[in-house]
């Protein structure tokens, strides 16, 4: 009996010992079909940080960064566009158009999250560089940092214009439980931060990329956005200098005719300073993975072949009437129901909206080749050279340099004239106020239906006057310049975040 006992004890002991050793191996299960941060085989050579960098580019064209909420905040809020679509559709966008915006509006919260995700993606690049203990050459590190800081600066520039007081996040959180409830910083602090990011980017980004990286941000992109950042702060001299850096780079010109800048044919033309790249073909189907719904949300809301999109951001009657006589830019900006498209098609009558954004209209040949009517493949123009030239003109005029301002203004008008000297007479006034009005008008027309108008009228201090004149009398000064801080974020913050005035 005793021996049996010992035998059992021994066996049990053996079993337990074996189990103890093998258990930990048995329990070690790591992801099978995805890498982890520890085992990712980063590519060799120049593109060491490309994987993180490209993730940030992916986020740049995300729906809540550059599509509906983007178009609505920048243009539908202005007098140049109506909400569009059918009357009772898209009430959340209508709230923006009507200045009846509530903090609970879903687009407001999604914009917040979308742009902070973009900030996070930029910070992830910086973290990757910082954590890289290999002997990656300094210039590669610096260039990656520059690209990250450009994207971060760009994100904050939109956030500060839309929300005003916002939290400043410049790192990846190590403890999300205790670190993420960050209080807001003032716009002055944010602008200062943006300037530093963009100055660094401008100093360290290349002037251009090889043909397989078309659309990657450059020194020109950084200086161009930086010029605009200065302009918003009325730092006229710096704005002029930054714009001048773009102009004198020699990379860009205004030689592309106005009607060829938009649509598929004008993608990455000589005018393109910063342009979000989108793609689709028969294999890489129309989707937000490779493309964007930017064109779809503004697309013609018709039937059959004209069922191209949702019909938001419809050019307004005010914009229609704002053009100088026979300005050819109007036909490339406004697509009329019952009119003719840039591609020669007859647009049907009886569409739900009288006008659509012609600049977002896709080429029917491309539609046929992709097999879709919504133009997911269309690049989103963020910064055109004409914008930079007009920024120069505006800054120069504010500095009293009328001649230089007139010169740059004429560059833009001359291109618009397209050889027809009977239209768009040269502006000659050197009166600063008159010239200011002329430049403001030129910005409105040249960049109509792009992503400038609402922000421009706010920074020029004419928003109330312009919007009330256009019948948007709900606009309240001191409140509607900004979106509310999203209620969802206020709720999560337990009082750390403060609501914007008036909401």
């Amino acid at each position, binding site marked *: 009996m005793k021996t049996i006992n010992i035998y059992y004890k021994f066996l049990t002991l053996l079993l337990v010992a074996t189990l103890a050793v093998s258990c930990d191996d048995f329990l070690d299960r790591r992801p099978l079909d995805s890498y982890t941060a520890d085992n990712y085989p980063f590519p060799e050579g120049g593109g060491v940080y490309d994987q993180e960098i*490209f993730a940030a580019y992916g986020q740049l*064209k995300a729906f809540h960064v550059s599509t509906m909420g983007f178009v609505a905040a920048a243009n539908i809020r202005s007098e140049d566009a109506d909400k569009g679509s059918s009357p009772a559709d898209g009430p959340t966008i209508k*709230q923006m158009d009507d200045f009846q915006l509530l903090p609970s509006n879903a687009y407001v919260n999604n914009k917040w999250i979308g742009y902070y995700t973009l900030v996070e993606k930029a910070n992830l690049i910086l973290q990757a560089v910082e954590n890289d203990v290999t002997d990656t050459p300094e210039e590669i590190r610096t260039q990656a940092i520059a690209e990250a800081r450009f994207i971060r600066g760009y994100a904050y520039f939109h956030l500060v214009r839309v929300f005003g007081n916002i939290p400043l996040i410049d790192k990846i959180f190590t403890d999300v439980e205790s670190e993420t409830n960050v209080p807001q910083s003032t716009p002055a602090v944010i602008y200062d931060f943006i300037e530093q990011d963009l100055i660094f980017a401008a100093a360290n980004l290349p002037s251009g990329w090889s043909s397989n990286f078309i659309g990657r941000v450059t020194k020109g992109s950084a200086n161009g956005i930086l010029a605009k950042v200065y302009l918003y702060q009325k730092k006229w001299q710096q704005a002029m200098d930054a714009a001048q850096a773009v102009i004198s780079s020699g990379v860009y010109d205004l030689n592309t005719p106005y009607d060829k800048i938009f649509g598929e044919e004008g993608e990455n033309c000589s005018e393109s300073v910063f342009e979000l790249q989108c793609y689709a073909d028969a294999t890489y189907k129309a989707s937000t993975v490779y493309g964007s719904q930017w064109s779809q949300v503004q697309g013609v809301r018709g039937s059959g072949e004209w069922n191209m999109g949702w019909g938001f951001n419809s050019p307004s009657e005010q914009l229609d009437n704002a053009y100088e006589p026979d300005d050819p830019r109007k036909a490339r900006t406004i697509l009329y129901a019952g009119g003719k498209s840039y591609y020669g098609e007859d647009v049907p009558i009886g569409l739900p909206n009288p006008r659509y954004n012609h600049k977002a209209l896709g080429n029917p040949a491309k539609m046929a080749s992709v097999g879709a009517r919504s133009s997911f493949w269309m690049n989103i123009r963020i910064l055109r050279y004409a914008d930079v030239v007009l920024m120069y003109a505006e800054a120069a005029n504010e500095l009293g340099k009328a001649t230089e301002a007139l010169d740059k203004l004429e560059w833009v008008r001359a291109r618009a004239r397209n050889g027809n000297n009977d239209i768009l007479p040269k502006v000659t006034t050197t009166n600063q106020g008159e010239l200011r009005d002329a430049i403001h008008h030129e910005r409105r027309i040249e960049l109509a239906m792009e992503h400038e108008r609402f922000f421009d009228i706010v920074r020029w201090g004419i928003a109330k006057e312009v919007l009330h004149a256009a019948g948007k009398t709900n606009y309240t000064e001191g409140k509607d310049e900004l979106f509310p801080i999203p209620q969802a974020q206020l709720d999560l913050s337990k009082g750390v975040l403060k609501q914007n005035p008036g909401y």
Partner: protein
Amino acid sequence: MKRNLFLALAMLLLSVVSFAQNSITLKGKVTDPLGQPIIGANIQIKSEPQRGTITDLDGNYTLQNVSPGSTLIISSIGSRTQEVPVNGRTSINTILEEDYQTLDEVVVIGYGTAKKRDLTGSIVTVRGEEIASRPSISPVASLQGKVSGLTMVTSGAAGEDPTVRIRGINSTGDSSPLYIVDGVMQTSINYINPADIESMEVLKDPSSISIFGLQGGNGVIIINTKRAAEGETRVNFQSYVGFQVLEKKIKVTDAAGFRKLYDQQLANIGADPFDYTNYTADTDWQDEIFRTGFISNNTLSISSSGKNSKTYLNLGYMTQEGIRKLNDYSKFIGRLNEELKFGKYIKVGADVIGVYRKSNPAAGGLNSAINAAPIVPIKDADGNYYATPSFQRAQVGNPVAAIDIRDGCDVNDGYRFTGTVFAEIKFLKNFTWKSSFTGDFSFDEARSYTPLPFKMIYLGEGEAETEIYENKLAKTAVSHSKNFYKNTQQDHYLTYEQEFNDKHRITAMAGFSTTYRYNNNISGNRSDTTLVVPNDPSIWYLNIISPNNPGSYGSGANESSTVSFMGRVNYAYKNKYLLNATFRRDGSSKFAPGNQWGNFGSVGLGWIMSEEAFMKKLDFISFLKLKASWGTVGNGLNIGNYLAYPSLSTGGVAIFGNNIYSSVYPSYIPDPNLHWETVEGRDIGLESQFLNNRLRFTFELYNRKTHDILTRVTLPGVAGSSSYFTNLGTIGNKGVEILLGWNDKIGEDFYYSVSGNLSYNKNEVKSIGDNIDFEIFSDPNMTRSGYSIGYFYGYKKEGIFQTQEEVDASIQKGMAKPGDIKYADADGDEEFTPSDRTYLGTPFPKYNYGISLSCGYKGFEFSIDGQGVSGNHIYVQRRNYLYAVTNYEVNHLKAWTGPGTSNTEPILDITRSNNYLFSEHWLERGDYFRIKNVQFSYTFKKEMLQKLGVQKLMLYVNGQNLKTFTKATGYTPEVGIASTTGGRDNGIYPSPTVYTFGLNLTF
């Protein structure tokens, strides 16, 4: 094992006692109240408990050498035990009455069995007969209303499992219980034939569930499948056929109502009226997407039992058509169970199940039928479908076209094979070693086809002409995917059983178990840019399309594993004082090394008062047990596999010109400290039976706390869109469960029973996110200490503003207009701010109750079950759809149109955004009572059948979900009860009403 011991002892004693004087040979028959023989009933002599026999296939028994003055104890599982004095008779026929809660029954408790009376935990047993005749393809669905403390949301979709919660939500993560099928851990049990279930046990308290560890914190449901019964070969056939229909439609406006309301809405925002000239139809889209579905289940089982072997064979075929068009599901199940004995001490066995299933998904969206405008016709005589009007075209399509285009375009099927082998060795008298190995393999395959789109008719609106459009850009495509699942489990445990001096009864167990789960999938699709692939399922393989066409491909895999050690001691002293204790140590691969292991355990005490001398005098008390238990259980299986690891996502791309580049970013924010969630519970209970077991009463109080809840947390937006999964805090569930039952006979032939159960559960967050300095809020579900998880947080509604004066006198002055919702100033600051939001209700029912009545007379039996919940609210999220103009639910017909017109429905103006803030306006009461099941059956008299060689024949008609009494307006008040975002009705699949006719035949 016990029985073998008894038999061996009986043999031994027989030789000693057989010379007893005047002994007689006793014969008899044991039947149930319907006259059906009870097979395998125990006949024992009271004075000589070692002696006994069992009835044969015809219910007959023979017992020799019985003293004429002795008393027989006749018992059978599921029946009330009887004591019959012999009084010198040589033939005693006995009728055993049914007893649903027999205390001497043996229950499966995990790694062994125990007498129910010896347990200190809370276990409810539901027998197979109560499940088999219910027309549910998933066996769990039949438990609804039968078990106190069990909340269930049944899905009406063909082949889908219901959501089950035991004693409330214990976690903000997945709170599904653990299923144990014949000892094997499963997350879904839809591969089991409901007709093949012997019994199901619901384990609710820590003292019962802690032995299972892993995921047991949410409760455990044990399923025991049938085995061969004692006796010769038997053949049983069970079958039902029936149909299911939608119980009720959601009330939406017809064409006239729609026109009225859309006109009103457009006028309210100053827009021109819509041109209805060509939209003259009045279509009820719900009638078009629902149908009457056929349902049937047929099972043939053969069992045979010999001296050294037992064989059980079961074949089943079931088919179910969903009430939504195209949705159907059918499966064939074959099962073979074999047990072999080698001598007295060794038993080996195997159980093999093979399943083939075939299904078709529902096509089109459920909500599209309530959203599509009724003014649109379906299709014209040429088969062209009508497009929806411009105001909803981008979001809502023709619901019928969406179904018809998918008709016959999916081929989904799958196989599942589950096999278990075991060996059991008894040694040294009191020891049993059992080892078992299980492999469970599933293969799912799906092929589908994208046909060319229908020609669509766009009706003219205003100046636009009507046109027929054929989309020439569309291409045909095929896709093909395969999934493979592999689950393995091994269990080894040693049991020690001993009785000392008739006073001490002890059962001890120590064991070891591992599980491993793996799955992989591969999928691809191609679309043909030059040819039109024919609509012929036999050729839907990717290679039918030339590889130079566009397509995409992918594959992935997942695995996880667990290791556990467990031990248990059950001790009973003098049949009166009970002690149950368990310990379990679990390791899981889902946590990072260092956090993988958790220790859990429980202690339970019981006191069978009715065994005490002073109680035995009280004749009206048949049984009385007091019990108390405490324990902890781990929870950690229902979470993602690699949450503690910094996994990377490569899904996003960057585009530069025409070049596509891959990218990488963190899939989520990992919590390296992620560890086990622990459910800690205390239970006090009373089990009792009175008046000769006719009256049953059980009462239980429980108090459970879930510590370190595993939760996905919404981070502040500045952290980006990454999700974060962590151990958060403590929540509590307190409750009471009461069960009361009565059964009796009137005269010889009429018997009846009534029973009801009621449970009350209070869910309360104790502390949440001690380290987290932000709110846990998924609008409108708020999770805060002191309230139930995910309670509804919003504004209180006081009515509708009738006049401008009323607006001006309110806190909403300047923000509202007449016709808007008037909100309460909840914080009393005389301003309308977000801090006026407050507690509006909980998505979780406070009360769950069930009631059953049954009665029988000479072979006829009638039963009715009802079930209900109370105390919860439903968020009618489907009405808060703000992206297009949709058809209106009829409540809008009462919309405010001027002073005095309505004080409940605000003005129909989608731009009055204040009316869309989350408030009581969007809530409705979730209380309901449902007539769950009505069954009428007839069992033929044996004499009538004998000539046909039939042993038993029962016919029945059954109706399920016959009527629901509720104020909720959705298809069903059974709205999802997922923890932090519960109670939202965003288009819930209806629970159908099912009528079936069935038979149960034994040869």
